[in-house]
């Protein structure tokens, strides 16, 4: 085999291997949240009324808006891959920026939501919180813990997409070699996927 041929084969292998590795990593992320979903379901089962009351205190509209925002951002990141496949660097970068902006809007909404709860004293340690029924307290604990951890993932995902943009601009990501961008997008879809479950569990079930 000539040298260039070996290189092409190895390069192809590298690409497949890194995508494979990304999928494995996503498994671990799912299991990380899986532990929390398990805790949620057990406590929900044990405290059904309290959880229903807790759920009715969350603002369904902000939750729904955030769901739409994240779904749209998944669309834009998927489109950015099509753009790079068609060698349209400019469009790819624009779409990636749209994704990041949507992520920021999501976080701003989250900020308003949390700061409202902060004002009414609905967080661990306050007098209001201590007087809640035990189950409702658990509901809000899980709410903060799970949406908080999800929020951290949104931030990480947005930073990752920032690196993708840098690499597209540097010409390291091209229509021939866009596995890094694909991995970034996969991660972003995971962030989206987890929210799809968080939204009904906390906001919709009353």
């Amino acid at each position, binding site marked *: 085999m000539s040298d260039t041929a070996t290189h092409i084969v190895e390069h192809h*292998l590298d690409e*497949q*291997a*890194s995508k*494979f*590795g990304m999928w*494995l*990593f996503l*498994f*671990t*992320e799912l*299991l*990380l*949240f*899986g*532990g*929390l979903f*398990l*805790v949620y379901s*057990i*406590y929900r089962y*044990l405290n059904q009324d309290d959880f229903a009351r807790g759920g009715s205190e969350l603002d369904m509209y902000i939750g729904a808006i955030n769901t739409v925002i994240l779904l749209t951002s998944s669309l834009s990141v998927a489109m950015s891959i099509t753009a790079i496949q068609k060698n349209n660097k400019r469009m790819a970068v624009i779409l990636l920026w749209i994704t990041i902006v949507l992520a920021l809007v999501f976080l701003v909404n989250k900020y308003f939501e949390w700061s409202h709860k902060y004002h009414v004293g609905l967080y*661990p*340690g306050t007098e209001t919180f201590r007087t809640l029924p*035990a*189950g409702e*307290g*658990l509901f809000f*604990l*899980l709410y*903060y*813990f799970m949406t908080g951890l999800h929020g951290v993932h949104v931030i990480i995902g947005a930073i990752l997409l920032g690196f993708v943009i840098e690499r597209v601009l540097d010409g390291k990501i091209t229509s021939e070699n866009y596995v890094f961008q694909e991995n970034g997008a996969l991660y972003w879809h995971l962030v989206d996927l987890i929210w799809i479950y968080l939204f009904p569990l906390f906001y919709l079930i009353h």
Partner: protein
Amino acid sequence: MSEVTHHKSFLENSEGKNVVLSWLFSTDHKRIGLIYLYLIGIFFIVAVFFGFLMRLELIAPGKDIMDPQLYNGLFTVHGVIMIFLFIIPGIPAVFGNLMLPIMIGAKDVAFPRLNLLSLWIYIIGAMLALTTLMGADKLPDTGWTFYAPYSIKSNTYVMQAVLAAFILGFSSILTGLNFITTIHWLRAPGMSWFKMPLFSWALYATAWIQLLATPVVGITLLMIAAERYLGIGLFDPSLGGDPILYQHLFWIYSHPAVYIMVLPAMGIVSEILPVFARRRIFGYNAMAVTSLAIAFIGYLVWGHHMFTSGMSGPARIIFSFLTFLVAVPSAIKVFNWVTTLYKGSIDLKPPMLYVLAFIFNFMIGGLTGLVNGALATDVHVHDTYFIVGHFHYVMFGGTGFSFFAAMYYWFPKIYGRMYDIKWANIGFWIIFVGFNILYFPMFIVGMMGMPRRYYDYLPEFHWPNIVSTVGSWILIVGIVIMLVNIIRGSMKGPKVGQNPWRGLTLEWQTQTPPITENFEQIPSVTERPYEYKD
């Protein structure tokens, strides 16, 4: 034909950089493996020393050399260091890194930089774990299991230990991810799945457990941390939480984790046994498949740690049944090892001695495990020294011995030198005898009813404890002999050639010590790895 070029070995090839930095930031899997070996070796010695102190306290009833608080601290840090810093990363991080890519004919792991990141995450986690040692009265005192609600209330350095375990978990996940990808994509031409060395099969099964079980304990430990920082009540019953739920979540990881500890050890046994018996391994396919079976069934048995914690009858019966089920693939392995020896020409070199001792110890550890797995007997021996004996027979007598076997086996490959075989054998016998004197009395005293985790005991438990403590001294003498021999051998031992054990796997078919890229030319494989014909 291109002429044969002689590249420098990985020990010498610093690629023109500063020697220290070229080691610390090397992405070469062999250098990373060696750094792991040195760090893990140091942590092992530290934790052995804690164990020695505990045994010394137990030499007689009443207070001998320490107060109860210090004793609680010592058994916790002994457990935390041994489990999270030595035995979980142990064989995969050291020998997996050193040998896996060479054994499957690859130049490196699939993600060399990620591998370096795993090492650094390990170092950070280890440093955090070591901060718990500052101040004898502040040692974490919950046991390595961090059971809630005490782990939330104890005002010792539990937090650092919990976060260290969390961080070390990431190192383990990334190593597992790397190995799975490496085995899937980087096998040499001709090496089909069922032509892989059995050590790679074992690492493959282990890596899946690392990947799929570790995140669960990660999130659980994070919940403990949140509970301590924020005073939220996920597991504390006084705040509405459920401590039994913590135990479930903890063991959902930590039972599979014992297979993270023991599966690679079994892989090493399957690797060494054919070489020193000059025989093809008996039942290669069964060996490969049982590794996966153990990994799979191992997921479903965590409840047997909690038979006395409060679980429904049917749940206990199912968990007990599954526990017996996992003994089947383990037993298949033992039968196959013994059958491999049949009519072999057995050469009792140090690696072989340790492997044979593994089989002996593992049988005692495995069979006593069934006593714990049966519901009625478990109620009697639960939380007694019987469990301590069982656990150490499997973990130290099994995985620990196999770690030593691997060290003696691959030592000449890594350093290009040989240790003193006579002293290695003497060290082995002292370790083997000391080990059994140390841990066997624990079965007896456990059956008599002595509970674990106390610094004091009733006078009728006195004699087995004296025997046990004397055993710990013998064991330590053996370990010192082994260490001196290994360190001397790595610096002054006589040089050896490419294949001192006449092994057939790929790591013996390349230069000693291997070059940075492992092979001058990527080999191609045509037959299974253990076709000994002499």
